[in-house]
């Protein structure tokens, strides 16, 4: 602020007295000098008007209400005391959530990512084909949409349907069992009536065997050189030391 002198008062003195004037504590000659300076000085005059206006604006401000949870939070963060009384006064009313809404919310949480993936346009053709296949399948199976209207969802009807279905399944199972028992009995009777046949003779030469059946496993324990069979695990006697060493290409089984 430039320090001008007007009517015997400097601007610095005016600045010091300004707050006293606004507070209403300045009276008498001092106040007259002050007002005279304000009327003459081009700096201090507007300053007085602006300061008075600013003070009036500020006086118009009302106190704001602190949040209801503030005291409780302060006590919890200082003493760690979360008094029941405060909690009761502060607690906000919780909206009532039914179990159905809870289930829906949890299902939505699980299904939302899947649904977001499925919603992509590239799957539109797949869904169209699936719907077409389903409708064809239902038509072939004889299911008509008109029949669905006849379905009753009353608990008694549902219970009756359940028991009927259960009875038919049980009946089907029992019938199948009877059929199998009869077949088994017939086979047994046939086996008893037919005379026993000699067992099949073992063919030593398998060169012409075209059945593609694997060789009996028992023979794989032996090393074969021409028609001479040697037990692979048998200790070699003096007469067998000169036998040629052959490579074994069959499975090895260590007993």
């Amino acid at each position: 602020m430039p320090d001008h002198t007007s009517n015997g008062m400097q601007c610095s003195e005016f600045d010091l007295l300004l707050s006293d004037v606004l507070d209403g504590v300045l009276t008498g000659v001092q106040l007259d000098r002050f007002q005279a300076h304000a009327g003459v000085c081009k700096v201090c005059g507007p300053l007085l008007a602006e300061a008075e206006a600013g003070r009036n604006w500020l006086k118009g401000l009302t106190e704001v209400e602190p949040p209801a949870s503030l005291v409780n939070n302060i006590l919890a963060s200082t003493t760690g005391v979360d008094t029941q009384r405060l909690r009761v006064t502060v607690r906000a009313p919780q909206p009532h959530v039914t179990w159905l809404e809870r289930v829906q919310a949890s299902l939505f949480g699980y299904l939302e990512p899947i649904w977001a993936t499925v919603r992509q346009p590239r799957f539109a053709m797949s869904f169209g084909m699936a719907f077409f296949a389903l409708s064809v399948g239902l038509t072939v199976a004889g299911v008509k949409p008109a029949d669905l209207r006849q379905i009753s969802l009353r608990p008694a009807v549902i219970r009756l349907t359940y028991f009927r279905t259960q009875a038919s399944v049980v009946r089907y199972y029992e019938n199948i069992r009877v059929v199998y028992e009869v077949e088994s009995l017939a086979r047994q009777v046939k086996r008893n009536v037919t005379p026993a046949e000699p067992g099949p003779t073992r063919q030593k030469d398998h060169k012409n065997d075209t059945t593609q059946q694997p060789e009996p496993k028992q023979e794989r324990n032996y090393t074969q050189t021409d028609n001479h069979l040697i037990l692979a695990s048998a200790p070699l006697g003096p007469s067998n030391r000169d036998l040629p060493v052959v490579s074994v290409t069959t499975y090895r089984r260590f007993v």
Partner: protein
Amino acid sequence: MEDVQVVAMLVRRCIAGDAAAWEEIVQTYNRRIYNICYRFAGSGDDAEDLTQEVFIKMYRTLPSYDHTKGAFVTWVTTITRNLLVDHFRKTKQDRMTDSMDSTASEHEDAQPLSEQIQDQSAPPDAHVRRREVSESVHAALAKLSPELREAVILRDLQDMDYREIATVLKVPEGTVKSRINRGRAELGRLLQRTYRQVM
């Protein structure tokens, strides 16, 4: 404003571990501290956090309070002011970034406050009008420098006398008066320009 002996007793009970005494102090001063923080910081969320910080600091330093050196409310206000200044310094970088991002300039002539505040024209209800004026003053207050802002808040909103303010701000009374005058004048200038544009 406060009975010195009663407050001194309350503080002694707090130091001795009386939770009820501490709760009484919190109940008594939370509104005042919240209002100072709200007017200085400008946001309700910041004010809530800062108020909690003030009480935490107060709780820790309560044994250091000496009732012979000054009133409890002055001591509380000093703690609040110091925390607010710290907060202002910490968030200075954020505010600078915000001001660079925003299109509005802080310069006086760039954009009048009326354009930053909602339309003031002919509010149908006096209550709405009062609320809008209050918001305008709050917004204008946030535009003052922190030195001027704290001075006018303590004087005009908290009704503290100059000596107490001088103690809190740790400056002479003459400086306090000068800051209050400049703060009021700056606020008046901002709001006069705003409402001249509206009217």
